[in-house]
């Protein structure tokens, strides 16, 4: 795999630039903006497990919120951001915050301690209730970047969005690997979902076409690092 290691040295698959801003794609699916000391995570979908129990009587393990927050804790410890931005759909539904266990609530408060915390509105949690700290906004402008939940076709360069839960599939020699991924074309970046129970939408789905009319690169979250994969190597469905 000589080529792959060369690639690692020359391209540095995980560092990108978007609208003049330096970005670093973390293998957890978080986005690090070193220039702003800001960490962005998208689609946490906290309390998704309990939403299922309430709605359909399916008792998924009620540990997804804890799991997601633990992963977030690990990234925050590592990078020590001055600001954390949750890019929408932070809770699976508007009543999610009410159902949160006291222990998990305390964990959110501890993570917010000493740093700015922004909840961007999503479609699942457009009206996040009070009591989970931080501040709320529809979109956030950071330098040349615009952070919003749902990507808009034809939006200005520098859009960073979530919502679509992109994932990519690579098939080779009778094996296939399916992973969450970032997807970008140098003008726009769509982030993977960060939540423990969040599924994925294949980047070859038609939904992505108007967003990336001139093609894209997917950045798949591997076990050890992030891998930059061209469209040609990505399987459908």
């Amino acid at each position, binding site marked *: *795999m000589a*080529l*792959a290691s*060369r*690639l690692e040295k*020359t*391209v540095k*698959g995980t560092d990108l630039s978007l609208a003049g801003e330096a970005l670093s794609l973390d293998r957890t699916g978080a986005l690090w903006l070193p220039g702003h000391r800001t960490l962005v995570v998208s689609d946490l979908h906290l309390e*998704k*497990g*309990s939403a*299922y*129990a*309430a709605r359909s*009587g*399916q*008792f*998924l*393990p*009620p*540990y*997804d919120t*804890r*799991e997601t927050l633990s992963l977030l804790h690990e990234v925050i410890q590592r990078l020590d951001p001055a600001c954390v931005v949750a890019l929408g759909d932070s809770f699976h539904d508007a009543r999610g915050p009410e*159902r949160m*266990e006291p222990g998990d609530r305390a964990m959110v408060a501890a993570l917010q301690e000493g740093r700015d915390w922004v909840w961007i509105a999503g479609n699942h949690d457009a009206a996040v209730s009070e009591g989970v700290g931080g501040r709320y906004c529809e979109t956030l402008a950071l330098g040349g970047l615009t952070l919003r939940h749902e990507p808009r076709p034809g939006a200005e360069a520098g859009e960073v969005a979530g919502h*679509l*839960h992109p994932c990519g*599939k*690579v*098939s*080779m*020699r*009778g*094996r*296939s*690997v399916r*992973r969450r991924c970032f997807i970008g074309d140098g003008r726009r970046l769509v982030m993977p979902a960060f939540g*423990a*129970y*969040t*599924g*994925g*939408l294949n980047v070859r789905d038609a939904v992505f076409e108007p967003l990336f009319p001139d093609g894209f*690169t997917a950045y*798949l979250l*591997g*076990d*050890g*690092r992030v*891998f*930059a*994969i*061209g469209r*040609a*190597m990505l*399987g*459908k*469905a």
Partner: protein
Amino acid sequence: MPSSDLPRPFADWFAARGWSPRPHQLALMATVQAGRSALLVAPTGAGKTLAGFLPSLVELAATPPGKRGLHTLYVSPLKALAVDIARNLEAPIQGMGLPVTVETRTGDTPAHKRARQIQRPPDILLTTPEQLSLLLAHREAESFFAGLRTVVLDELHALVTSKRGDLLSLALARLRRLAPEARAIGLSATVREPDALRQYLVAQTPPPSAEADGTPLPVPLPDLADLVVATGGARPELRMLDIGRTLPLAGHTARHAMPAIYALIRQHRTVLVFVNTRLQAEYTFQELWRLNDDTLPIALHHGSLDASQRRRVEAAMAAGQLRAIVCTATLDLGIDWGDVDLVVNVGAPKGASRIMQRIGRANHRMDEPSKAYLVPGNRFEMLECRAALDAVEEAAQDTPDARIGAPDVLAQHILGMACADAFDPPDLYAEIVSAAPYATLSWEDFEAVVDYVATGGYALRAYERFAKILRGADGKWRVRDARVAQQYRMNIGTIIESTHVKVRLGRQLRGKPGTVLPRGGRVLGEIEEDFCETLTPGDTFLFAGEVLRFEGLAEDECLVTRAGPGTDPAIPSYAGSKFPLSTFLAARVRAIIADPFEWDRLPRQLSEYLAQQRRHSVLPGERDLLVETFPRAGRHYLTAFPFEGRLAHQTLGMLLTRRLERAGLRPLGFAANDYGIAIWGTRDVGERAALAPGFVEALFDEDMLGDDLEAWLDESAMMKRTFRQCAVIAGLIERRFPGQKKTGRQVTISTDLIYDVLRRHQPDHLLLRAARQDAATGLLDVTRLGMMLRRIRGRIIHRSLDRVSPLSVSVMLEIGRERVYGEGADEILAEAEAALLEEALA
């Protein structure tokens, strides 16, 4: 015994046909009339089914109709079998003019008929285990079954070895409570140790609790149903097909034997050609048609074909229009398909009982011998065929292991019981432990399952207010509401099909290669989604008797075109065999290898091959494990020959690879077949063994089943698949039905994600325990691996060789044929990433 033992219309009916009732038919009737349950063991063609129904028909003939409720319940593993039996019962009932009604109840029975059956049940109802569970969960179950007198369980040997058997055992326990007078009749093919089946049929007495001073009381003998054995029956004429040429050392296709098989088809009236996998069926079908200059009607039958196509083949067979059917296990059981005068089994027999069952498909008359050929695909399969021939000669059988009832099945059953009526925990517990598979279930474990059913069984009590079953002030549990009961009904059953996608023939647009019309052609059948996932457009594979080219996935359909003539299918898929070699047959194979005096009975090419191995390296003794290390083409290999079946070997391979990794020996991958494994890497294990005596012994130490196994299970894809099945059966996630579309990214939550979260936060959760219990015997065969490691302790023979030995060649040939393990996801991704760079540099 004279037929005068039968009441009048029956004796006359037998006599009019020139028949007399067989001894086992009368013996079974006597037992059942005495109010006892019984197991009838009889070979195919012995009139097993009639024997099972005779006591009921005699009783019903003597009871005035009108005031009767359901008298006899018949449960079969196959829907088609129930329908077929209904047809077969018509002859005696109409022939004798008996006032007896017979109906079937399957998934195909229309709703109005189901409702009517509850109100006005027939005398005899024929159904499947799943439908029985649904009936028992019905609010009317108590009155519906109150008058039940007999339960007939057909093909019991095939049912009890699975989770369906667990479910049926619980249903039987409930029936015993609703109808204490009912007798159970089990019908089984020949089994070596029938006691497990005899226990299954009757209530087990719970072991007494210890004396007050703590001294445990002696465990009572298990309760057994009576045993009735049909004796006699002609010995089958079974032979190994000799094609007069040397067989390859690996591969299962038996390509070389196809002309001989075709010749057999020409010489016989109707031939059943059994194979072990769907892919092998496709291959064999295609090869036979390539040779079919006489255009004999040869058909194909396997579980993935479109149902209507299968029905057509079955009808043609029954009408005697076919000369041969190439088929898989779908035709192992049950129905009489016309006048089969020869059975050909292609590939390894894998188990003595399986081969007996298949041979029995030829000639359904007990007094005439069935005729069959075994066709080995390679030299090792010759060994296996020899062992199977010996086993059939001695009428020796594999023993189905008695199962420990699965907790996920119990969870499903408990919810069903709550749907039927409020239950009192001690009563339900007593009922459940009377079922043989659950006889050892502790009260605590029972309570844990009830807790799981109620709120998910989580240490974090998050779902109390959403509970599915609620405990009332009277201490009884009741189902929460009609929606929960509906959910139960939708998710009943233990058979979790891997998700299938339709294979649709698309049309290639003229002049535009690579463009395929998404809709258009007909549906050829269904293939596993997992298999489909691994295909990339342009890949060719065999399906429905054709070489197809994969074009892409469109709306959950696998779109294909016909590949050009002469195209070889590129994707081998499951070229290996699906069933692992049975323990019983494996031991016989080892015994043959170990004893050169046995070799006279082997084909010459095989004995010569074994002699070469003895000269070059060594042949292991019956209980030994041979390990060889040797260099080849710049890599170092380790091979081992436990003969424990592919599943156990794959697990062994994963664990050994981890150990070698830790010892700094840099393994790169491994391959496994039914007989052994090969591991390769950049460093020499033999050299390390020379420096550190005892290294090889330590490598195969039993302690690999401790932490190494745990660590691997955590991330094993097979473990995740096992967990998914448990989660569906236990109702944690809902079943996906064929045809139901995935409607977007947030509707279904991947069970892999659930598995990861659960094992990190509550590793002792019921469903994880259930999945581990399955792994022990299922896809990972850990139990068997453990038995092997104990067997070989102190009996490892290591040979450091300068080149590959004859024995090792066989497993080396699997490399590249079977999927290579030990290759991580990141390696695949890195390779795909490299392609991007190449593109950029181009």
